[in-house]
């Protein structure tokens, strides 16, 4: 217990002191991206890890959050505190819209519908040119400004991202250590037995999925404000690959596993400068290994 506390304190110190230790803007940039990935990883973790559902809708939520925040900031000049809330609400609503029809049917239907939703939203972003400018994308997104306080410097962004990541972990921790969290695990372990215990699998999954949607949308909004440019690529699947690697190998269904996964799988490829081709190869091999040796994780 003491060692655990010490380890967490040390990690906390490193996180706090990171900008002092590292002056490189490039590394700080990677660190901000890592923070956003932690939020995304917890979003996926809630669904994949704690509910045992394969969801391909994470890019959909991420993209919705990015576009909602961007449009509100660009067109209406909203404060980032407000754009984040609206982005989260967008994720929540999308969670209901995608989850309500599909979670009732079957887990397979759910996978297909989440995939379809992501593809559909990407098409909308590509073709609704009046609003999204299609593939030209939306440039010059204002950097984050919380209640008038501008987040411009990389160091400021670093702390904002670290704060967001901390909040995502805290929120996930709060949820999974509650009675609702136990319901999620029960449904994941045995849906029939859960029903016999009076646990409604559909509602449990829907609630988790909506929270997951809100989290991913917030990550998307942060991304948009940080990168200051988005295009329909935010609905792309390149992120999903990386994200699944982070969550599954980090430890789906644990609180800190996906955090470690996010840090390792953002930092490692950058630090080692692996070629993209090699990364895909490793990713494929890893996924294959998981399917071969731990098929219950995904197919349970």
């Amino acid at each position, binding site marked *: 217990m003491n060692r655990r506390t010490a380890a967490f304190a040390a990690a906390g110190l490193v996180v706090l002191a990171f900008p002092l230790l590292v002056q490189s803007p490039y590394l700080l940039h990677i660190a901000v991206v890592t923070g956003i990935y932690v939020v995304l990883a917890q979003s996926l973790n809630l669904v994949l890890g704690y509910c045992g559902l394969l969801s391909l809708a994470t890019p959909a939520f991420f993209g919705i959050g990015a576009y909602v925040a961007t449009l509100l900031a660009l067109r209406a000049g909203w404060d980032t505190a407000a754009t984040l809330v609206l982005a989260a609400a967008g994720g929540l609503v999308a969670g209901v819209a995608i989850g309500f029809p599909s979670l009732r049917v079957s887990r397979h239907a759910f996978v297909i519908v989440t995939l379809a939703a992501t593809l559909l939203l990407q098409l909308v972003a590509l073709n609704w040119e009046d609003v999204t400018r299609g593939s030209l994308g939306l440039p010059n997104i204002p950097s984050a400004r919380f209640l008038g306080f501008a987040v411009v410097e990389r160091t400021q962004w670093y702390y904002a991202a670290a704060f967001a990541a901390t909040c995502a972990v805290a929120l996930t921790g709060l949820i999974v250590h*509650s009675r*609702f969290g136990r319901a999620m695990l*029960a449904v994941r372990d045995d849906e029939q*037995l859960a*029903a*016999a215990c*009076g646990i409604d699998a559909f509602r449990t999954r829907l609630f988790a999925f909506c929270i997951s949607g809100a989290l991913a949308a917030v990550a998307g909004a942060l991304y948009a404000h940080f990168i200051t440019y988005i295009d329909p690529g935010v609905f792309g699947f390149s992120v999903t690959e990386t994200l699944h690697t982070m969550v599954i190998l980090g430890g789906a269904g644990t609180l800190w596993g996906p955090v470690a996964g996010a840090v390792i799988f953002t930092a490692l490829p950058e630090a080692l400068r692996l070629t993209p081709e090699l990364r895909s190869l490793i990713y494929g091999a890893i996924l294959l290994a998981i399917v071969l040796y731990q098929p219950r994780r995904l197919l349970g």
Partner: protein
Amino acid sequence: MTSVLSVRDIVKRYRGVTALDGVSLAVRAGTITGLIGPNGSGKSTLFDCISGFQRADSGSVQLDERTDLTGMAAVRIARAGVRRTFQQLKVFARLSVLDNLLASAQAAPGYSALAESLHLPGTRRHERAMRERALQVLAEIRLAPHAASPAAALSYGQKKLLELGMALMSDPKVMLLDEPVAGVNPALIEDLRRELVRMPARGVTLFVVEHNLQLVFDICDWIFVLDRGRLLTAGTPDQVAKDERVIESYLGHG
């Protein structure tokens, strides 16, 4: 004496095969009632139809002579107070033994995912009370030393005990137990038997499917005999034991 479960004219067909052919029976409150019959006579199917895991083609089920359970979803039937176990033993394998009990008491009135997730004060009080209750049940079924280990680590017999403890945690009016002692060694059967006979005193009516006839005749107040989807006979253990048709049905297509 009132009936905790009233089953009327349940019919269930699978593509031409009639699994239940108009079964009517009443389980009286405060009893241990047995349901026996040869393999394939429809016992588990009847449990499925009562508990909402399968939908009967026709017929009705009532709880406490008041609540109509016919066509209700399994979750709602469970919340109404009908708790079932499965022929294929089920526990939440990856949850701890204690969490299995707590998950089993999940469906309390006023449960709200949001309130629970935010750990609102009311939910904490409830959680504490449930935890105390769970520890008490654990002590009763003698699994207290295993509270923190995952349910998957228990022996088969211990899982059977846990299953019973879980059912007890949910405070049901009636338990439908599908082969509570199947595959358990004699020493543990004794433990299970002891728990079973205490249930009526805890306010739980038992409706038991079991192939261990010695146990059934020992603990039951009333026994229903199913044969090929129909109620063959019913009576006290003595009456049923003397009924030649029962022996015939067991030997006839064994």
